[in-house]
């Protein structure tokens, strides 16, 4: 490769062109960009499904979806898409790939080819998942895939098998990605970039990578058992063969609970960077913040059965899982208060990423306090499987994560594309989306308290009022979503060029802001040397 010569001329953009640049890509930035686009595609499909669901639920009775298997398929696919193909790719694959190497001063990820296969496995998984909904009757199991409902007797045809294989392939992608991040972060930090100087986003991705590495294989094992139950006559989860449906739930949630932290911890990282930047202060209580994420990750592995308070666990077991779950409120509290303390005494610029971060705090706190309620086995069973739970996890995990993604995209798009988003429109988009999701999800608390079960296409007439309000919220959210995609399109097409390395000013202290905008194809070819406070003592050198 003519790499050296090109570099000598200050030419950083030497790279393959056309389709080869993307399909064969081993570049962390290009792969990150592809992850983000994949997430956009999945978000449009998954979002369309949720709007169709809300359309059906706007009024009691059956209006649009008279095939209830199809309704269940929508519920299932919406969950899978949003968890595995929207939030995870955008935050871990997208922003993680883009900014972990930049932030630690590494030229690229440790295993660039493995990075490529991680992405393409995920793309293949997305195809498999979409296929699963169109072959046969689709998987009508919910994203939790509980047997016996997911067994071959009750979901005949290849749909659930396609779904299982989609998760298997997505899981392989996640494991490879996790290994890549762990090795990169442990081995490729620039001189002076000690663990305790790493930006919190890097800490977040490191914790997330460990969660993936430990949790996804358990899901893979459970999925394989389900696959053989369905196809080869084993009875791991079938009571008539000595198996146990509850075993699946234990295995699934041993993965599933860490999975929610896999989704929200990268969001913590993004929010920490954004709040620090726009408050023009270092994050308050940095060490506490880093180890709060570590402890959330650790404790997250021993609380799984709080998803199973109605399966008939022994009272002592439920008491343990209640206590363990409540403990998680402590490190999450530390995070909230540290963000507030970072803003306290700061000099806050209300740029769009900051608005999204403030929106995140609001959503996360509401979802967090209802989580404290649900942690109590003594009262959880009144809310279990009702819309209260739907409201809780959409607040704390889904919508909070979406706001972290908005924050990240607005924060970094200048660095990624070299163009800035339209300021006013992006602020309008924030407000529309923020109002939309609150109108959408807040009334669902009332529905849940009043006893409306989740995953139903029709409901008793008394639940009409709040369902209608909720569907109006979905409409507003849809408008906000389309505005966002318009902003994406507008930014790439005619956004204002970003000329400064650092458009955000003194608050933006991490290393991605010392390389040019847009970030050249190769960065940190000469390793920066990091001094105290995580700032480089020498600039990451654009050659001569």
């Amino acid at each position: 490769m003519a790499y050296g010569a090109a570099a000598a001329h200050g030419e950083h953009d030497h790279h393959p062109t056309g389709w080869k640049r993307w399909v064969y890509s081993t570049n962390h930035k290009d792969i990150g960009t592809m992850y983000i686009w994949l997430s956009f595609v999945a978000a449009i499909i998954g979002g369309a499904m949720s709007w169709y669901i809300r359309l059906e639920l706007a009024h009691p009775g059956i209006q649009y979806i008279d095939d209830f298997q199809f309704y269940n398929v929508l519920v299932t696919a919406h969950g899978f898409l949003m968890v595995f193909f929207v939030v995870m790719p955008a935050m871990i694959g997208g922003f993680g790939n883009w900014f972990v190497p930049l932030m630690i001063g590494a030229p690229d990820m440790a295993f660039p080819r493995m990075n490529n296969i991680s992405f393409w496995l995920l793309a293949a998984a997305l195809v498999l998942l979409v296929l699963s909904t169109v072959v046969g009757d689709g998987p009508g199991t919910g994203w939790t895939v509980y047997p016996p409902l997911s067994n071959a007797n009750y979901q005949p045809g290849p749909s659930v098998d396609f779904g299982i294989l989609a998760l298997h392939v997505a899981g392989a992608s996640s494991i490879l990605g996790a290994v890549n991040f762990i090795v990169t972060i442990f081995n490729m930090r620039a001189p002076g970039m000690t663990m305790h100087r790493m930006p919190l986003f890097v800490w977040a991705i490191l914790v997330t990578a460990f969660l993936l590495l430990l949790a996804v294989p358990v899901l893979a094992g459970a999925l394989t058992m389900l696959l053989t139950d369905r196809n080869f006559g084993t009875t791991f989860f079938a009571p008539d063969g000595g198996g146990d449906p509850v075993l699946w739930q234990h295995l699934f949630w041993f993965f599933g609970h860490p999975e929610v932290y896999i989704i929200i911890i990268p969001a913590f990282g993004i929010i920490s960077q954004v709040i620090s930047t726009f408050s023009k202060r270092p994050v308050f209580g940095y060490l506490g913040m880093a180890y709060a994420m570590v402890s959330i990750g650790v404790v997250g592995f021993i609380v799984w059965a709080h998803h199973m308070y109605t399966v008939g666990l022994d009272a002592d077991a439920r008491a343990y899982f209640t206590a363990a779950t409540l403990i998680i409120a402590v490190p999450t509290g530390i995070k909230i208060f540290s963000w507030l303390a970072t803003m306290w005494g700061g000099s806050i610029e209300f740029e769009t990423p900051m608005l999204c971060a403030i929106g995140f705090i609001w959503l996360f706190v509401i979802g967090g306090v209802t989580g404290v309620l649900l942690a109590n086995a003594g009262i959880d069973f009144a809310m279990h499987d009702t819309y209260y739970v739907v409201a809780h996890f959409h607040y704390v995990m889904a919508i909070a994560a979406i706001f972290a993604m908005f924050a990240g995209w607005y924060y970094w798009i200048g660095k990624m594309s070299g163009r800035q988003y339209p300021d006013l429109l992006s602020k309008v988009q924030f407000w529309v989306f923020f109002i939309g999701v609150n109108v959408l999800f807040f009334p669902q608390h009332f529905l849940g308290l009043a006893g409306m079960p989740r995953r139903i296409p029709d409901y008793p007439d008394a639940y009409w009022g709040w369902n209608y309000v909720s569907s109006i919220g979905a409409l507003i959210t849809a408008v906000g979503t389309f505005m966002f995609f318009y902003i994406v399109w507008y930014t790439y097409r005619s956004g204002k060029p970003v000329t400064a390395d650092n458009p955000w000013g003194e608050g933006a202290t991490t290393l991605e802001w010392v390389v040019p905008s847009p970030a050249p194809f190769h960065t940190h070819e000469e390793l920066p040397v990091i001094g105290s406070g995580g700032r480089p003592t020498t600039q990451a050198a654009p050659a001569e």
Partner: protein
Amino acid sequence: MLEKLKILVPFIALGVMASPIAASAEEGLAKPWQMNLQDAASPVMDKIHDFHSLLMVVMVGIVLFVLAILGYVCFRFSAKRNPVPSKTSHNTLLEVVWTAVPIVILIIIAIPGMRLLYFHDRAQDYEMTLKVTGHQWYWTYNYPDQGDFEFDSIPVPEGDLEPGQPRLLTVDNRVVLPVDTNIQVLITADDVIHNWAVPALGMKIDATPGRINERWVRIDKEGMYYGMCSELCGVYHSFMPIQVEAVSKEAFAKWVEQAQEEFAQNDGSSVNLVEAEQKSR
């Protein structure tokens, strides 16, 4: 802090409780625009109401506290008002406080929470037993202490409803239970996982094939209590309601006499199922 938060109670009560004014015969189902739990008709649900009220104070308190700080910070420390940011990056005392105070709040929550957990787990002295079996997509009820009769409880389709019968909640044969009686409920399923839930009675427990789950209920007031299957169980998941009619002990005894005759042919229907299957081969 909690003391101060108690000031909020009336507001929460105003804002959150949609209190029905005059309910003559107890109707255990949601009302239009309802914002809170269904009215309690059992000791367990009573305690859930109490615990929920405590939690509401804590939850609303925390949310308002954070919102107040957030609002103040955004106002006071905007770039216009505070052009020079502080450079302090930690404060050990503050960090200890915001770790310790949540722990105290959690303990305040956990104690009544644990009491409630053990309270609704099991009762000591059962006066009768009800067996519940979930199927795709109806329930079967069995009364082992009243002559072991058994019947299916099939949802009434929308077209066949009589005036006043709520849609999606009405069944042909409802479960009849006596009030003021400690009833053991044994729950299972014979195909996929269902969940037997009656919100007003504080009842929700999985019906899992291959397992028998146990709960107890004591109904305080005569009336009709409704619920829906609460675990995704397939195509007609939203169409397998639960309808419990709570009557006086005397009325229950009368009903049992009738039911024993009416459902005599169904006695031991699991055996009948096997026979039916053999015949069909």
